[in-house]
């Protein structure tokens, strides 16, 4: 018994190492888990950026898998991921719906005219109200919305090639497999 007690510090040390290992191997602590996963895309009614007279509602979802990308012209990371979104759209044909988040409409339209638009269309959210409904806390954020209009995945930060291959493709593959069943 007293012999076993000698191993107590070693045991405590190993527990500490385990905790630290788990703690430090966690993802970026700035990345919050989304509460929106597996929930319906929140209902909304907002105008389209490209054509302010056209109102958009959550009825645009359903029947197909889409990406929803929250972006703004004031967000440098959005510019960085823009080319990747264009590549994704061209190579996969996946529809991308933009949410132009807390932005100036004229600047946003000019931006799209200048760099090209990977978006099918953009929802204009100048107050960030749809953003709050979605739990957005910074741009860019990208959601995967399935054919039932449910949010399946959310990525905070830029979508680059690595993120696309490692994070998005498995989710999209799983959705495809589900649909095939």
């Amino acid at each position, binding site marked *: 018994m007293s012999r076993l007690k000698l191993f107590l510090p070693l045991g405590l040390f190993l527990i500490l190492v385990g905790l630290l290992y788990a703690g430090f191997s966690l993802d970026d*602590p*700035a990345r*919050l*888990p*989304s*509460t*929106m996963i597996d929930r319906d895309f929140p209902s909304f009614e907002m105008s389209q950026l490209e054509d302010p007279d056209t109102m958009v509602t959550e009825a645009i979802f359903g029947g197909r898998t889409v990406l929803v990308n929250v972006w703004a012209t004031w967000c440098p990371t959005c510019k960085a991921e823009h080319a990747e979104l264009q590549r994704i759209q061209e190579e996969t044909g996946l529809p991308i719906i933009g949410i132009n988040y*807390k932005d100036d409409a004229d600047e946003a339209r000019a931006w799209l005219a200048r760099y090209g638009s990977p978006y099918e269309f953009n929802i204009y959210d100048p*107050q*960030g109200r749809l*953003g*709050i*409904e*979605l*739990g*957005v*806390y*910074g741009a860019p954020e990208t959601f995967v919305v399935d054919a039932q209009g449910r949010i399946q995945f959310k990525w905070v930060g830029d979508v680059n090639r690595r993120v696309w291959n490692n994070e998005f493709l498995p989710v999209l593959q799983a959705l495809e497999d589900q649909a095939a069943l």
Partner: protein
Amino acid sequence: MRLIPMMLLLKLVAGLLLALSAAMVSSPALAAIEPVEFATPEQERRYRSLIAEMRCPKCQNENLAESNAPIANDLRLMIAELIRDGQSDREIRAFLQERYGDFILYNPPLRADTLLLWLGPFALLLIGVIVVWRIIRGQPQAPQATTAVDEARVRELLGDSDTQTDRDAGSDRQGA
């Protein structure tokens, strides 16, 4: 001639100190809050208490009241609007928690998966109390006098007779 730059330097230092003290007086909590109008002082009190207890999702260690992040600004306005709409504190907390998760609450809910968070400190305190209690209880017994038997054994072990040690080892093995 050399006095003039000195005076300038002094003035500069004094000015900096003044600016610094002014910055310290206006607390960051007040600096970040934009003017929000409420119908009653009660609503304003609720607003201040809610934005103080909610965490900013962008800047990890600031509450909504202190944060200058755009999202904190938006959420403050949202909370003000919900208060004006007549929502209760509980409903407003639920509204934000539904969208931003437990993270937004500085006061985490007591649930099965947060039990360790709530009870952990008490468990550690209990362990500490037990350890201290055992140390205190064990102390009077610590300076134990060596008994006659011990002394005999010590002398025996210190004795350089090989045969005796062998015999002892042998008897140990028999005893085991």
